[in-house]
């Protein structure tokens, strides 16, 4: 994965940032700083999935210049906080694998539907590959979206009766209405 230069916030080089603060007010500030940092980092790096067990390989959770790591349990609790706003979701029971949505699923869904409307592809069928990687979507925010995340976003549209997912083993597509 190519590392995109990200402008780290001042907290990133502030050692207490990597210890969960016991003081409630301080902690809420700290956690919210972490939340925005995680979302920003994932957006810049097009990172859809975080595995907590491998999180220390990411510079996000490991600042080698001040030699501080964020404890995995703290990572999990921050991601849980993110999940409350729909910005993350745990993929397994022990909450090791997480999808991170820097746009919530609803936002993704409306973005995709906007694109579909713009290009007049209602009542037509698109493959998921076309939607995520196709030439036409380049330059769109959701270009390169992770397939699992895409499906979840389309499920949101489906519940609004704006599309129907066609998920067979061979080809996965979606029909927009």
């Amino acid at each position, binding site marked *: 994965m190519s590392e995109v230069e990200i402008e780290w916030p001042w*907290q990133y080089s502030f*050692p207490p940032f990597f210890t969960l*603060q016991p003081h409630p*007010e301080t902690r809420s*500030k700290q956690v919210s700083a972490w939340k925005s940092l995680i979302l920003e980092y994932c957006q810049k790096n097009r990172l859809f999935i975080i595995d907590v067990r491998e999180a220390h390989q990411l510079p996000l959770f490991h600042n080698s210049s001040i030699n*501080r790591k964020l404890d995995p349990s703290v990572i999990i609790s921050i991601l849980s906080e993110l999940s409350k706003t729909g910005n993350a979701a745990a993929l397994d029971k022990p909450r090791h694998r997480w999808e991170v949505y820097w746009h919530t699923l609803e936002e993704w869904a409306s973005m995709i539907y906007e694109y579909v409307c713009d290009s007049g592809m209602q009542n037509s069928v698109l493959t998921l590959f076309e939607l995520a990687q196709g030439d036409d979507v380049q330059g769109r925010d959701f270009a390169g979206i992770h397939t699992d995340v895409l499906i979840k976003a389309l499920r949101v549209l489906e519940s609004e009766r704006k599309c129907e997912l066609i998920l067979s083993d061979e080809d996965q597509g979606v029909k927009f209405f």
Partner: protein
Amino acid sequence: MNRWKYASPLLLDNEATAICKKNVRIYDGDQKTSFEGGELIITTHRLLWGRPGAISKGQTCLALNLSLVVYIEEESPSAFSFSRSRKIILYLSEPTDFDPNGPQQTSIYNFIKLSFREGFNSDVTAILNDCIQRKQWETQVNAAVAAPKVTQSHIKLRTGIVGIERSLQEKQKAADESISVAFQDLSKLMTMAKEMVQLSNTISTKIKEKQGDITEDETVRFKSYLLSLGIDDPVTRNSYKSENQFYRSLAKQICDILQSHIEEMGGMMALTDVFCRVNRARGLELLSPEDILSACQIMESMNLPLKLYQFNSGVMVLQLATLDDESVAEATAILLDDKGSLSSEELAQTLGISITLAKERLLTAEKYGKSCRDDSIEGLRFYPNWFLTH
């Protein structure tokens, strides 16, 4: 044979000579000894044996207290015996006191024999039996026996290291006895104490349960009864102790001693340090930790310049009454801003206070949102709380 002592042949008070025989040999059990051909005098108290002529000259002779003789019998001469000598066997009890002043220190036998080379009339055994049964040595006036005995033993004790050791031992023994006598009552009390405490506990729990049924007046009266018995009643402990005059004056004294020191140290002193300093200042009449704690607990209610404060961690300190958490947090925050970051050790060095107190200060600052922590493998450090200030 170890029951024999060297003694003066002079008769004691009330002692009277019963019979005198010559050419007598002493056996230690079945063994012949070198004490042969001497004079034997049976008195009402003792057997005296001396070399021929020694007793009449008043020289030292051997003496055996008749009180040690349990039983005597005459040895029947064996069929092969050619000698004319007749023997008496004296069975002896264990010596009552150890006395190094004898011809032989130990003996494997508990009997001796007296061999009368010239034979004797049967009245010797009769007289001896008579003397033993009368026990005249017991009828002596106690003082009369005790007095010479004591002086005698004092003289004997001075001899050699053994004597010194023995006198020390005896002193210890006497001290032991007097102590055990003194504490006899106490040991009884101690065996009772557990029951007493249990009793008072059950009663006080009953009172607690039936708070409504008994009038306030009765409760208080009962509790005061318990206290007058010296029983710590868990229910009333705080309320009653705090009114105690002793603790009030003690609290005042502690304040007098420590106020200036605590001001110097930044307004706070751990209770352990308080304990050491107060007792150091008193020198004698030392205080128990519990007394100091109780005294400190009532300081606040007495409006003294110092008060007891307990941190969340349980650490207790005596601090200036003017000092509150907020000002501590404030002062620590200023220090943090100056230094950038601080560990408890560094703060302890900067302020000249103990590490425990330094840590408490940093935690207090954290509690007020004035600092934040960095808990890494390098240890716990505190930083100014930029989360809230930036």
